[in-house]
Protein backbone atom coordinates (compact mmCIF):
# COMPACT_ATOMS: atom_id res chain seq x y z
CA UNK A 1 0.00 0.00 0.00
CA UNK A 2 1.58 3.32 -1.06
CA UNK A 3 1.73 5.99 1.56
CA UNK A 4 -0.72 8.82 1.61
CA UNK A 5 1.97 11.33 0.88
CA UNK A 6 3.25 9.54 -2.20
CA UNK A 7 -0.28 9.37 -3.51
CA UNK A 8 -0.79 13.06 -2.94
CA UNK A 9 2.44 13.80 -4.75
CA UNK A 10 1.39 11.67 -7.67
CA UNK A 11 -1.99 13.31 -7.87
CA UNK A 12 -0.48 16.75 -8.04
CA UNK A 13 1.96 15.59 -10.72
CA UNK A 14 -0.93 14.35 -12.83
CA UNK A 15 -2.71 17.61 -12.35
CA UNK A 16 0.32 19.50 -13.57
CA UNK A 17 0.45 17.36 -16.66
CA UNK A 18 -3.20 18.02 -17.24
CA UNK A 19 -2.63 21.75 -17.05
CA UNK A 20 -0.02 21.52 -19.78
CA UNK A 21 -1.98 19.27 -22.11
CA UNK A 22 -5.04 21.37 -21.63
CA UNK A 23 -3.19 24.54 -22.51
CA UNK A 24 -1.74 22.86 -25.60
CA UNK A 25 -5.19 21.80 -26.63
CA UNK A 26 -6.47 25.35 -26.36
CA UNK A 27 -3.59 26.70 -28.41
CA UNK A 28 -4.18 24.04 -31.06
CA UNK A 29 -7.86 24.88 -31.14
CA UNK A 30 -7.15 28.54 -31.77
CA UNK A 31 -4.65 27.73 -34.51
CA UNK A 32 -7.01 25.19 -36.00
CA UNK A 33 -9.69 27.80 -36.44
CA UNK A 34 -7.37 30.05 -38.40
CA UNK A 35 -5.87 27.36 -40.58
CA UNK A 36 -9.27 25.82 -41.21
CA UNK A 37 -10.58 29.12 -42.55
CA UNK A 38 -7.59 29.37 -44.83
CA UNK A 39 -7.85 25.94 -46.37
CA UNK A 40 -11.60 26.18 -46.87
CA UNK A 41 -11.14 29.49 -48.65
CA UNK A 42 -8.30 28.22 -50.81
CA UNK A 43 -9.91 25.00 -51.95
CA UNK A 44 -12.33 26.26 -54.64
CA UNK A 45 -9.57 28.06 -56.50
CA UNK A 46 -7.20 25.12 -56.37
CA UNK A 47 -9.89 22.69 -57.48
CA UNK A 48 -10.95 24.88 -60.38
CA UNK A 49 -7.34 25.18 -61.42
CA UNK A 50 -6.97 21.43 -61.38
CA UNK A 51 -10.14 21.07 -63.43
CA UNK A 52 -8.85 23.46 -66.05
CA UNK A 53 -5.48 21.76 -66.19
CA UNK A 54 -6.85 18.29 -66.57
CA UNK A 55 -9.21 19.50 -69.28
CA UNK A 56 -6.32 21.15 -70.95
CA UNK A 57 -4.02 18.17 -70.74
CA UNK A 58 -6.54 16.12 -72.67
CA UNK A 59 -6.58 18.56 -75.48
CA UNK A 60 -3.14 19.95 -76.03
CA UNK A 61 -0.20 18.15 -77.39
CA UNK A 62 1.86 16.98 -74.45
CA UNK A 63 5.04 18.17 -76.04
CA UNK A 64 3.65 21.70 -76.03
CA UNK A 65 4.97 22.36 -72.57
CA UNK A 66 7.85 20.65 -70.74
CA UNK A 67 5.74 20.25 -67.61
CA UNK A 68 3.10 18.23 -69.40
CA UNK A 69 5.48 15.69 -70.81
CA UNK A 70 4.97 12.04 -70.13
CA UNK A 71 8.14 10.04 -69.97
CA UNK A 72 8.82 6.45 -69.23
CA UNK A 73 8.83 6.27 -65.46
CA UNK A 74 12.21 5.29 -64.12
CA UNK A 75 12.71 7.82 -61.40
CA UNK A 76 9.98 8.65 -58.95
CA UNK A 77 9.96 11.53 -56.53
CA UNK A 78 7.87 11.50 -53.40
CA UNK A 79 6.99 14.68 -51.60
CA UNK A 80 6.36 13.81 -47.98
CA UNK A 81 4.46 16.45 -46.05
CA UNK A 82 4.82 16.17 -42.28
CA UNK A 83 4.73 18.68 -39.44
CA UNK A 84 7.57 20.44 -37.68
CA UNK A 85 6.31 19.63 -34.23
CA UNK A 86 5.21 16.46 -32.55
CA UNK A 87 2.57 15.69 -29.94
CA UNK A 88 -0.10 15.36 -32.54
CA UNK A 89 -1.07 11.71 -32.28
CA UNK A 90 -0.63 9.57 -35.35
CA UNK A 91 -0.34 12.54 -37.68
CA UNK A 92 3.28 12.06 -38.73
CA UNK A 93 3.39 8.34 -38.09
CA UNK A 94 0.65 7.74 -40.61
CA UNK A 95 2.39 9.80 -43.25
CA UNK A 96 5.74 8.24 -42.69
CA UNK A 97 4.36 4.71 -42.75
CA UNK A 98 2.42 5.33 -45.95
CA UNK A 99 5.42 6.95 -47.60
CA UNK A 100 7.76 4.14 -46.66
CA UNK A 101 5.29 1.63 -48.01
CA UNK A 102 4.99 3.58 -51.23
CA UNK A 103 8.76 3.82 -51.59
CA UNK A 104 9.07 0.06 -51.27
CA UNK A 105 6.36 -0.48 -53.85
CA UNK A 106 8.17 1.71 -56.33
CA UNK A 107 11.47 0.05 -55.62
CA UNK A 108 9.88 -3.34 -56.11
CA UNK A 109 8.96 -2.20 -59.61
CA UNK A 110 12.57 -1.30 -60.29
CA UNK A 111 12.22 2.46 -60.06
CA UNK A 112 14.64 4.75 -58.29
CA UNK A 113 13.07 6.83 -55.61
CA UNK A 114 13.98 10.27 -54.35
CA UNK A 115 12.42 12.04 -51.41
CA UNK A 116 11.49 15.65 -50.92
CA UNK A 117 10.44 16.30 -47.40
CA UNK A 118 8.48 19.07 -45.79
CA UNK A 119 8.53 19.23 -41.99
CA UNK A 120 11.08 18.44 -39.35
CA UNK A 121 9.38 15.23 -38.25
CA UNK A 122 9.52 13.58 -41.63
CA UNK A 123 13.10 14.66 -42.12
CA UNK A 124 14.19 13.20 -38.80
CA UNK A 125 12.57 9.91 -39.64
CA UNK A 126 13.97 9.52 -43.15
CA UNK A 127 17.39 10.76 -42.18
CA UNK A 128 17.82 7.58 -40.22
CA UNK A 129 16.97 5.45 -43.25
CA UNK A 130 19.07 4.72 -46.26
CA UNK A 131 16.85 6.43 -48.78
CA UNK A 132 18.01 9.44 -50.67
CA UNK A 133 16.68 12.75 -49.42
CA UNK A 134 16.93 15.10 -52.33
CA UNK A 135 15.49 18.17 -50.78
CA UNK A 136 14.02 19.23 -47.47
CA UNK A 137 12.08 22.18 -46.15
CA UNK A 138 11.63 22.73 -42.46
CA UNK A 139 9.97 25.47 -40.50
CA UNK A 140 7.52 26.41 -43.23
CA UNK A 141 4.51 25.93 -41.02
CA UNK A 142 5.48 28.64 -38.55
CA UNK A 143 4.48 31.32 -40.96
CA UNK A 144 2.92 29.64 -43.91
CA UNK A 145 2.54 31.85 -46.95
CA UNK A 146 2.26 31.58 -50.70
CA UNK A 147 5.99 32.29 -50.90
CA UNK A 148 6.69 28.84 -49.53
CA UNK A 149 4.49 27.32 -52.18
CA UNK A 150 6.35 29.25 -54.87
CA UNK A 151 9.61 28.00 -53.44
CA UNK A 152 8.59 24.36 -53.22
CA UNK A 153 6.56 24.33 -56.42
CA UNK A 154 9.42 26.04 -58.27
CA UNK A 155 12.01 23.54 -57.09
CA UNK A 156 9.86 20.60 -58.07
CA UNK A 157 8.93 21.93 -61.48
CA UNK A 158 12.57 22.78 -62.25
CA UNK A 159 13.68 19.31 -61.33
CA UNK A 160 10.94 17.69 -63.33
CA UNK A 161 12.01 19.64 -66.39
CA UNK A 162 15.66 18.79 -65.77
CA UNK A 163 14.68 15.14 -65.63
CA UNK A 164 15.62 14.54 -62.00
CA UNK A 165 12.44 12.51 -61.83
CA UNK A 166 9.69 11.41 -64.21
CA UNK A 167 6.82 11.29 -61.81
CA UNK A 168 5.96 13.07 -58.60
CA UNK A 169 3.64 11.85 -55.89
CA UNK A 170 2.67 13.73 -52.78
CA UNK A 171 1.83 12.09 -49.47
CA UNK A 172 -0.01 14.41 -47.11
CA UNK A 173 -2.75 14.66 -44.55
CA UNK A 174 -5.96 16.05 -45.91
CA UNK A 175 -8.07 18.09 -43.55
CA UNK A 176 -11.44 16.36 -43.39
CA UNK A 177 -12.82 17.83 -40.21
CA UNK A 178 -11.44 19.14 -36.94
CA UNK A 179 -11.03 15.63 -35.64
CA UNK A 180 -10.41 13.72 -38.84
CA UNK A 181 -7.47 13.60 -41.17
CA UNK A 182 -7.00 11.43 -44.18
CA UNK A 183 -3.68 10.36 -45.62
CA UNK A 184 -3.68 11.09 -49.33
CA UNK A 185 -1.29 9.91 -51.99
CA UNK A 186 -1.66 12.13 -55.00
CA UNK A 187 0.11 12.22 -58.31
CA UNK A 188 1.18 15.71 -59.25
CA UNK A 189 3.49 15.23 -62.23
CA UNK A 190 2.73 14.63 -65.00
CA UNK A 191 -0.80 16.00 -65.07
CA UNK A 192 -3.30 13.32 -65.83
CA UNK A 193 -6.49 13.92 -67.66
CA UNK A 194 -9.31 13.94 -65.18
CA UNK A 195 -8.20 10.97 -63.15
CA UNK A 196 -9.07 12.82 -60.04
CA UNK A 197 -11.83 15.10 -59.10
CA UNK A 198 -12.13 16.90 -62.43
CA UNK A 199 -14.02 13.95 -63.87
CA UNK A 200 -17.33 15.76 -63.66
CA UNK A 201 -16.08 18.78 -65.54
CA UNK A 202 -14.04 16.97 -68.09
CA UNK A 203 -16.66 16.28 -70.67
CA UNK A 204 -14.85 14.87 -73.68
CA UNK A 205 -14.46 17.49 -76.31
CA UNK A 206 -13.29 17.06 -79.81
CA UNK A 207 -9.79 18.35 -80.18
CA UNK A 208 -9.37 21.50 -82.16
CA UNK A 209 -12.61 23.06 -81.02
CA UNK A 210 -10.72 25.11 -78.55
CA UNK A 211 -9.51 28.66 -78.71
CA UNK A 212 -6.59 30.11 -76.83
CA UNK A 213 -5.83 33.69 -76.14
CA UNK A 214 -3.01 34.61 -76.22
CA UNK A 215 -1.45 31.73 -78.16
CA UNK A 216 -1.32 28.24 -76.76
CA UNK A 217 2.35 28.43 -75.83
CA UNK A 218 2.11 31.69 -73.89
CA UNK A 219 -0.96 30.54 -72.12
CA UNK A 220 0.61 27.28 -71.04
CA UNK A 221 3.71 29.09 -69.89
CA UNK A 222 1.65 31.25 -67.62
CA UNK A 223 -0.85 28.69 -66.45
CA UNK A 224 1.04 25.47 -65.87
CA UNK A 225 3.72 26.64 -63.40
CA UNK A 226 1.06 28.61 -61.60
CA UNK A 227 -1.00 25.48 -61.27
CA UNK A 228 1.75 23.69 -59.38
CA UNK A 229 2.28 26.59 -57.03
CA UNK A 230 -1.39 26.70 -56.28
CA UNK A 231 -1.49 22.97 -55.65
CA UNK A 232 1.58 23.12 -53.43
CA UNK A 233 -0.05 25.89 -51.46
CA UNK A 234 -3.24 23.93 -51.09
CA UNK A 235 -1.38 20.88 -49.88
CA UNK A 236 0.54 22.87 -47.29
CA UNK A 237 -2.66 24.45 -46.03
CA UNK A 238 -4.37 21.06 -45.86
CA UNK A 239 -1.53 19.68 -43.84
CA UNK A 240 -1.38 22.67 -41.50
CA UNK A 241 -5.08 22.51 -40.70
CA UNK A 242 -4.94 18.74 -40.28
CA UNK A 243 -1.98 19.06 -37.94
CA UNK A 244 -3.74 21.42 -35.57
CA UNK A 245 -6.81 19.23 -35.62
CA UNK A 246 -4.74 16.16 -34.81
CA UNK A 247 -2.92 17.92 -32.01
CA UNK A 248 -6.13 19.15 -30.51
CA UNK A 249 -7.56 15.66 -30.45
CA UNK A 250 -4.34 14.18 -29.09
CA UNK A 251 -4.10 16.71 -26.28
CA UNK A 252 -7.73 16.27 -25.42
CA UNK A 253 -7.13 12.57 -25.06
CA UNK A 254 -4.01 13.15 -23.03
CA UNK A 255 -5.86 15.40 -20.63
CA UNK A 256 -8.48 12.76 -20.12
CA UNK A 257 -5.97 9.96 -19.68
CA UNK A 258 -4.06 11.93 -17.10
CA UNK A 259 -7.12 12.11 -14.91
CA UNK A 260 -6.04 11.28 -11.34
CA UNK A 261 -9.43 9.73 -10.63
CA UNK A 262 -8.23 6.31 -9.60
CA UNK A 263 -5.51 7.78 -7.44
CA UNK A 264 -8.01 10.03 -5.76
CA UNK A 265 -10.12 7.05 -4.90
CA UNK A 266 -7.20 5.31 -3.31
CA UNK A 267 -6.33 8.41 -1.40
CA UNK A 268 -9.86 8.60 -0.11
CA UNK A 269 -9.65 4.99 0.99
CA UNK A 270 -6.69 5.85 3.17
CA UNK A 271 -7.88 9.14 4.49
CA UNK A 272 -11.29 7.89 5.46
CA UNK A 273 -9.98 4.90 7.36
CA UNK A 274 -10.83 5.07 11.06
CA UNK A 275 -8.13 6.84 12.95
CA UNK A 276 -6.94 8.78 9.93
CA UNK A 277 -9.89 11.09 9.71
CA UNK A 278 -8.11 14.03 11.22
CA UNK A 279 -5.72 14.03 8.26
CA UNK A 280 -8.50 14.51 5.79
CA UNK A 281 -7.81 17.42 3.51
CA UNK A 282 -8.69 18.55 0.00
Amino acid at each position, binding site marked *: MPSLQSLRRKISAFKNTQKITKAMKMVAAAKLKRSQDRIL*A*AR*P*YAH*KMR*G*VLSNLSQRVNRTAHPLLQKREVKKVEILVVTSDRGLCGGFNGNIVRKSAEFVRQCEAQGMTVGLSIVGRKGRDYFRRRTWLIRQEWTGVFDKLSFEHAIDIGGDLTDNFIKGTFDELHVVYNEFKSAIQQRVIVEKLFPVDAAVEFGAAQAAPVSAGAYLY*EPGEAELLN*ALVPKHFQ*VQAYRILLESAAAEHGARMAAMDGATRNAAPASLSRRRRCITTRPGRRRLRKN
Partner: protein
Amino acid sequence: MAGKILLEVVTPEKQLLSQQVDEVIAPGSEGEFGVLPGHCHFLSTLKIGELRYRVGDQTSHMAILWGYAEVTPTKVTIMAEVAEKAEDIDVDRATAKVEEAERRLQAGGLPSEVKEAQISLEKARLRKKIAERTRKGGHA
Protein backbone atom coordinates in the same frame (compact mmCIF):
# COMPACT_ATOMS: atom_id res chain seq x y z
CA MET B 1 -33.78 31.61 -74.89
CA ALA B 2 -30.99 29.18 -75.15
CA GLY B 3 -30.70 28.98 -71.38
CA LYS B 4 -28.13 30.42 -69.13
CA ILE B 5 -24.50 29.98 -68.32
CA LEU B 6 -22.99 29.35 -64.95
CA LEU B 7 -20.54 32.04 -63.97
CA GLU B 8 -18.06 31.15 -61.28
CA VAL B 9 -15.50 33.59 -59.96
CA VAL B 10 -12.81 32.32 -57.62
CA THR B 11 -9.72 33.94 -56.18
CA PRO B 12 -7.04 32.32 -54.04
CA GLU B 13 -8.78 33.85 -51.03
CA LYS B 14 -12.29 32.68 -51.68
CA GLN B 15 -15.10 31.77 -54.03
CA LEU B 16 -16.69 35.06 -54.89
CA LEU B 17 -19.57 34.11 -57.11
CA SER B 18 -21.43 31.16 -58.49
CA GLN B 19 -24.50 32.19 -60.38
CA GLN B 20 -26.55 31.52 -63.48
CA VAL B 21 -26.28 34.47 -65.82
CA ASP B 22 -27.31 35.44 -69.35
CA GLU B 23 -24.15 37.11 -70.55
CA VAL B 24 -20.59 37.70 -69.42
CA ILE B 25 -18.10 40.25 -70.67
CA ALA B 26 -14.56 39.71 -69.46
CA PRO B 27 -11.29 41.65 -69.83
CA GLY B 28 -9.16 39.27 -71.89
CA SER B 29 -5.48 40.08 -72.28
CA GLU B 30 -6.03 40.51 -76.02
CA GLY B 31 -9.15 42.58 -75.59
CA GLU B 32 -12.55 42.25 -74.03
CA PHE B 33 -14.65 39.29 -74.98
CA GLY B 34 -18.30 38.54 -74.51
CA VAL B 35 -19.76 35.15 -73.75
CA LEU B 36 -23.29 34.01 -74.40
CA PRO B 37 -24.66 30.54 -73.69
CA GLY B 38 -23.29 28.02 -76.16
CA HIS B 39 -19.95 29.73 -76.63
CA CYS B 40 -17.23 27.47 -77.93
CA HIS B 41 -14.43 26.25 -75.68
CA PHE B 42 -12.06 29.03 -74.94
CA LEU B 43 -9.21 29.67 -72.58
CA SER B 44 -7.73 33.09 -72.01
CA THR B 45 -5.58 35.08 -69.67
CA LEU B 46 -7.10 38.16 -68.13
CA LYS B 47 -5.62 41.56 -67.57
CA ILE B 48 -6.64 44.33 -65.21
CA GLY B 49 -10.15 45.22 -66.15
CA GLU B 50 -13.82 45.07 -65.59
CA LEU B 51 -15.96 41.97 -65.58
CA ARG B 52 -19.59 42.54 -66.43
CA TYR B 53 -22.35 40.01 -66.17
CA ARG B 54 -25.99 40.31 -66.96
CA VAL B 55 -28.98 38.56 -65.45
CA GLY B 56 -32.17 39.61 -67.22
CA ASP B 57 -31.70 43.34 -67.67
CA GLN B 58 -29.65 43.75 -64.53
CA THR B 59 -25.95 44.19 -65.15
CA SER B 60 -23.37 43.81 -62.39
CA HIS B 61 -19.73 44.79 -62.37
CA MET B 62 -16.62 43.43 -60.82
CA ALA B 63 -13.00 44.51 -60.80
CA ILE B 64 -10.58 41.83 -61.97
CA LEU B 65 -6.82 42.06 -61.58
CA TRP B 66 -5.18 39.42 -63.73
CA GLY B 67 -6.18 35.83 -63.90
CA TYR B 68 -7.52 33.21 -66.25
CA ALA B 69 -10.85 32.44 -67.78
CA GLU B 70 -12.10 29.11 -69.00
CA VAL B 71 -15.18 29.11 -71.14
CA THR B 72 -17.28 26.09 -72.02
CA PRO B 73 -20.73 26.16 -73.66
CA THR B 74 -22.44 26.01 -70.27
CA LYS B 75 -19.98 27.54 -67.90
CA VAL B 76 -17.52 30.37 -67.42
CA THR B 77 -14.84 29.99 -64.77
CA ILE B 78 -12.89 33.08 -63.83
CA MET B 79 -9.79 32.43 -61.77
CA ALA B 80 -8.63 35.87 -60.74
CA GLU B 81 -5.65 36.85 -58.65
CA VAL B 82 -7.81 39.56 -57.15
CA ALA B 83 -11.48 40.22 -57.74
CA GLU B 84 -13.80 42.66 -56.07
CA LYS B 85 -17.49 43.17 -56.49
CA ALA B 86 -18.43 46.74 -57.31
CA GLU B 87 -20.52 47.11 -54.18
CA ASP B 88 -17.58 46.00 -52.01
CA ILE B 89 -15.22 48.68 -53.27
CA ASP B 90 -14.68 51.68 -51.07
CA VAL B 91 -14.81 54.73 -53.37
CA ASP B 92 -12.96 57.05 -51.00
CA ARG B 93 -10.16 54.62 -50.55
CA ALA B 94 -9.94 54.02 -54.29
CA THR B 95 -9.82 57.78 -54.93
CA ALA B 96 -7.07 58.21 -52.38
CA LYS B 97 -5.14 55.41 -54.04
CA VAL B 98 -5.44 57.06 -57.45
CA GLU B 99 -3.98 60.26 -56.06
CA GLU B 100 -1.20 58.47 -54.29
CA ALA B 101 -0.27 56.51 -57.40
CA GLU B 102 -0.29 59.67 -59.51
CA ARG B 103 1.99 61.38 -57.05
CA ARG B 104 4.38 58.45 -57.07
CA LEU B 105 4.37 58.40 -60.83
CA GLN B 106 5.28 62.08 -60.98
CA ALA B 107 8.04 61.67 -58.44
CA GLY B 108 9.66 59.23 -60.81
CA GLY B 109 12.56 57.13 -59.59
CA LEU B 110 13.88 53.77 -60.65
CA PRO B 111 12.27 52.16 -63.69
CA SER B 112 10.88 49.39 -61.51
CA GLU B 113 9.30 51.93 -59.18
CA VAL B 114 7.74 53.79 -62.05
CA LYS B 115 6.35 50.58 -63.44
CA GLU B 116 4.92 49.66 -60.09
CA ALA B 117 3.31 53.06 -59.75
CA GLN B 118 1.78 52.70 -63.21
CA ILE B 119 0.26 49.40 -62.32
CA SER B 120 -1.12 50.57 -59.04
CA LEU B 121 -2.54 53.63 -60.81
CA GLU B 122 -4.26 51.41 -63.31
CA LYS B 123 -5.70 49.26 -60.55
CA ALA B 124 -6.86 52.23 -58.53
CA ARG B 125 -8.48 53.92 -61.51
CA LEU B 126 -10.35 50.77 -62.37
CA ARG B 127 -11.66 50.38 -58.86
CA LYS B 128 -12.71 54.00 -58.74
CA LYS B 129 -14.46 53.83 -62.07
CA ILE B 130 -16.43 50.75 -61.21
CA ALA B 131 -17.35 51.88 -57.75
CA GLU B 132 -18.50 55.32 -58.88
CA ARG B 133 -20.56 53.99 -61.70
CA THR B 134 -22.33 51.58 -59.40
CA ARG B 135 -23.02 54.29 -56.90
CA LYS B 136 -24.46 56.65 -59.51
CA GLY B 137 -26.46 53.93 -61.14
CA GLY B 138 -28.27 53.54 -57.85
CA HIS B 139 -27.48 49.87 -57.66
CA ALA B 140 -29.48 48.06 -55.07
